[in-house]
């Protein structure tokens, strides 16, 4: 059974007093299926309907029409809520409580046993990297990054099987991002279904199995990511113009020896596909060793950035008709193991999700 099924969801908001100003359509027929253990990112421009979709999934908003089922149950079923963790975009934690008291409060609300409360909450604080001093401090005195960590810990109370994260790494320092990735990888490996709403495209690309591009209240495109694909990239290598340019054949040979792929030449830039970060290091070292005068190496923008820049839809994808493109309707496909494609047309949109990655895959 699918973890989350959304069918033809429509949601609009009244404008003006009593709706006299008409209605603004936030979701115009969203259909989506998310399998258990899948990590799905929701991206899209501001006002696309991402937060509204999340609000409907959490039961905070009532759709005008359409259907949502969480493991076959309605969204407001208490069994669903008991298995749900939610990290809101606005860090609206009770500021008068200490960090530890807040976690204990949510632990109790989740109906978890009191005898393990303190140990569970301490473990969660350790997991997100908040020390004992911070645990005893009032939430109102937390920095933005600490609030984000505490909010994540709150969302993780009770090891949720469904995790909704709204802008989870906003304001988090690099160390916090590493912690976030590790937690998500472990949760995903344990079979939890995770939905991430974020504008941090690189992070979404790194942690998600699949990305849903929402625009004007519709699912414009879906992008299947390969687990660990964030490391696979195309490098643009700028060569010095003060020396004779290396022949493309020679560049291709060097790349081949370093385990990379030569993708093309457009003076003064050469483009190479590498499998991972180590492959990038090998390629750069090989080019330097062979006397290629390179002056700059930069990764090309990620797949999602290109998708975003293209507005989510090419002629191949278009708007998702109700019920179409849901992952559960297509046959499974093996994860793409090749380096990231360098053309927008290579997107595997409307593809079914890959299975959850092996532990530590990301």
């Amino acid at each position, binding site marked *: 059974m699918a973890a989350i099924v959304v069918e033809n969801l429509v949601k609009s908001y009244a404008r003006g007093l009593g709706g006299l100003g008409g209605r603004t359509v936030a979701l115009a027929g969203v259909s989506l299926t998310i399998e258990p253990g899948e990590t799905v990112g929701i991206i899209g421009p501001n006002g696309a309907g991402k937060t509204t979709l999340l609000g409907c999934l959490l039961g905070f*908003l009532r759709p005008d029409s359409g259907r949502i089922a969480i493991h076959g149950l309605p969204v407001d079923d208490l069994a669903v809520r008991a298995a749900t963790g939610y990290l*809101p975009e606005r860090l609206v934690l009770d500021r008068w409580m200490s960090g530890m008291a807040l976690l204990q*409060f949510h632990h109790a609300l989740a109906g978890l046993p009191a005898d393990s409360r303190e140990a569970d909450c301490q473990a969660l604080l350790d997991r997100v990297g908040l020390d004992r001093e911070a645990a005893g401090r009032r939430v109102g005195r937390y920095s933005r990054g600490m609030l984000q960590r505490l909010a994540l810990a709150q969302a993780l109370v009770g090891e949720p099987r469904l995790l909704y994260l709204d802008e989870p790494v906003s304001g988090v320092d690099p160390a916090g991002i590493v912690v976030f990735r590790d937690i998500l990888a472990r949760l995903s490996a344990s079979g939890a279904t995770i939905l991430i709403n974020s504008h941090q495209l690189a992070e979404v690309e790194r942690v998600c199995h699949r990305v849903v591009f929402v625009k004007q209240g519709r699912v414009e495109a879906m992008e299947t990511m390969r687990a660990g694909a964030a490391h696979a990239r195309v490098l643009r290598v700028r060569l010095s113009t003060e020396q004779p340019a290396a022949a493309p054949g020679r560049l291709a040979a060097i790349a081949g020896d370093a385990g990379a792929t030569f993708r093309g030449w457009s003076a003064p830039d050469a483009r190479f596909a590498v499998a991972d970060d180590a492959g990038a290091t090998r390629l750069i070292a090989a080019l330097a060793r062979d006397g290629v005068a390179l002056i700059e190496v930069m990764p090309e923008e990620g797949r999602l950035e290109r998708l975003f820049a293209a507005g989510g839809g090419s002629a191949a994808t278009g708007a998702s008709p109700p019920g179409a493109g849901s992952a559960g309707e297509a046959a499974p496909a093996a994860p793409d193991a090749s380096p990231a494609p360098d053309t927008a047309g290579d997107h595997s949109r409307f593809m079914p999700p890959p299975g959850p990655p092996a532990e530590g895959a990301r």
Partner: protein
Amino acid sequence: MNATLVRAFLRQRFTSPMRLAIAAMFTFFPLAGLALTGQLAMVQGIAGPLAILFAAGAIGQDVSSGTLQLLLARPVTRPAYLVSRWLGASLAAYGLAAATILLGAGVLVLRGTPAAPLELARVLLEAASSVTGHAAVMIMLSTLVGGLGDLGLYALTLFLSQMAAAIGAFRQWTWLQRASAEVQGVLGPEVSLAGLAQGLPPSWFAVVSWASTITLVLAVGLARLNRRELSYASG
């Protein structure tokens, strides 16, 4: 009812310096009056204001701040949340009101004019009815407006009903006077047990009226809370 929510609400209300300062003012002056006059009646009117103080913003502040989303993402139903807020506010206010009344009774003992046990029981019971009634009304108002808007709504409604009563008296419109009295009755539901000292039973009409008003305002609050959408986008 959710005991975790009630406990957290009580802790939150009793760690708010502003609320505690106002509560201290509410209790200090009646106690001082009691000490001067030797009348227990001086403290019997504190229950309603204390209930309004502790219930103000009970739901509206959660809605405005967004913390309600986090609560309702947990296995907590909206009715359980609303009833927990009502009970929390009632317990907080009654705890303080009862303590003040008992302190007043102690002062009377020290003055050598102890209150009659039946009189003390009457004041305590009336305080209980007043606290639960006022808290229910405030909880209902708190579902209608965000933040501490319920306080303003209460004051406005009270002011308008008193204005209407004055106009009714001036123009001798009994219907307007009656309507104003009804509105004021709804704003402060309580049971008068004045006959208790004489051994008379309470008026069942008053008890039923008080209970039905509480039920009605809580039902209205619940209907509003159930219809409320929780998102800054929906606002």
